[in-house]
């Protein structure tokens, strides 16, 4: 990975805004973006990515190539939480291993968006169906995690309420809104997008930058807890994403995905959830410590991906695809 690629990634308003938010906490400035403003931004980003993805999908249609990508996405969404679980069990109890592996099996929409914005800035494109792939990848890890829990934990009382688990997995707000706007974008096509573009397209990068300021603040607040997380987990939070990305890139190469799609796929596999999965885990696995899985995902993996991971995965992809 060339230094200039790293610099090109970092010298971008969104990434710098993230660092600004981080610095605000480290310098104790009392800067905050009070609730529910972060919810406004995260809703906006989900709607925007969904509508745009749906629109792109309506242009490309649902081809065999698209289905191939979706299948690969599904495969990784099932495989990652399984192997992550066994790695984590080396050092952690079942509950925390379940929660963390589910977190890493799922994805982070903002990481995906930032990667898209990076790709865009260097003039490479990717298919709108990648948003569909992302939506598909949000939920399975939750189910896999709880299956692991049933297999390996000895909880007799208070058995898992599977109906609720499936609702949490497939109908949590993030998945629902992404899925819904993807369909709306698909149904309303060109004409619909033209009406939505001024808000959900043109303003996108600015809103991303604004939101990353808040992500920086949230990550900063968790940084104090990184020490408590321990060296094993910190290493896990950096190495697993790299490993996942490499597996994804190899898979993508094997199945002849386009370069942009391969890169976005690797980012999806490398990213970890900090909204949907933690909420589900807090409810279904209260024995696990949320400080662990939220801190790891938000204060270790997210910044790593944003700053270093994205250019790294890109340079690997670029080398392989040429």
């Amino acid at each position, binding site marked *: 990975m060339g230094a200039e690629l790293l610099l090109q990634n970092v010298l971008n308003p969104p990434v710098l805004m993230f660092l600004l938010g981080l610095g605000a906490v480290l310098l104790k400035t009392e800067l*905050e973006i009070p*609730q529910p403003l*972060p*919810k406004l931004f*995260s809703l906006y980003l989900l709607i925007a990515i969904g509508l745009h993805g749906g629109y792109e999908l309506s242009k490309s249609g649902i081809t065999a190539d698209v289905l191939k990508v979706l299948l690969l996405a599904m495969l990784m969404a099932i495989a990652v939480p399984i192997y992550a679980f066994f790695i984590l069990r080396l050092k952690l109890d079942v509950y925390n291993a379940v929660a963390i592996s589910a977190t890493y099996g799922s994805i982070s929409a903002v990481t995906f968006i930032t990667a898209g914005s990076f790709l865009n800035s260097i003039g490479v494109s990717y298919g709108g169906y990648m948003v569909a792939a992302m939506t598909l990848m949000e939920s399975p890890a939750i189910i896999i995690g709880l299956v692991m829990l049933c297999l390996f934990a000895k909880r007799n009382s*208070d058995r898992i309420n599977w109906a609720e688990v499936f609702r949490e997995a497939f109908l949590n707000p993030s998945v629902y809104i992404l899925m819904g706007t993807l369909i709306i974008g698909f149904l309303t096509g060109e004409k619909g997008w033209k009406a939505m573009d001024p808000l959900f397209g043109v303003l996108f990068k600015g809103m991303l930058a604004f939101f990353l300021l808040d992500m920086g*603040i*949230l990550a900063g*607040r968790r940084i104090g807890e990184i020490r408590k997380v321990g060296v094993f987990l910190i290493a896990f939070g950096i190495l697993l994403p790299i490993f996942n990305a490499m597996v994804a890139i190899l898979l993508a190469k094997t199945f002849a995905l386009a370069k942009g799609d391969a890169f976005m796929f690797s980012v999806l596999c490398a990213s970890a959830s*900090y*909204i*949907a999965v*933690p*909420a589900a885990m*807090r*409810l279904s696995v*209260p024995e696990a410590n*949320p*400080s662990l899985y*939220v801190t790891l995902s*938000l204060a270790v993996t997210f910044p790593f991906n944003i700053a270093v991971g994205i250019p790294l995965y890109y340079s690997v992809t670029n080398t392989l695809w040429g």
Partner: protein
Amino acid sequence: MKKVEIVVDSVYLSRALEILEKSQVSGYTVVRDVLGKGERGLMRGDELADVFKNSYLFTVCDEETALKIAEEIKPLLKKAGGICLLSDVVWVPH
């Protein structure tokens, strides 16, 4: 009358309210989004998920119901954290 005050993790608010409904209280009042600190650490309420956020609720009822609620809420608080307080109040009828 007794006032039963409960602080509970926001993701478990609906479970706590179910317990109140089942005990057939005449009503309740909820303040969403309170912060706090307890055994499980600081709840600043600033995460994107509703993790790390508490809700504070209270209900006024007769002593018997209050004790019943206290009993039934215990397993939830044990599992998810939180506190439950009882005190004496006079409910001004209208």
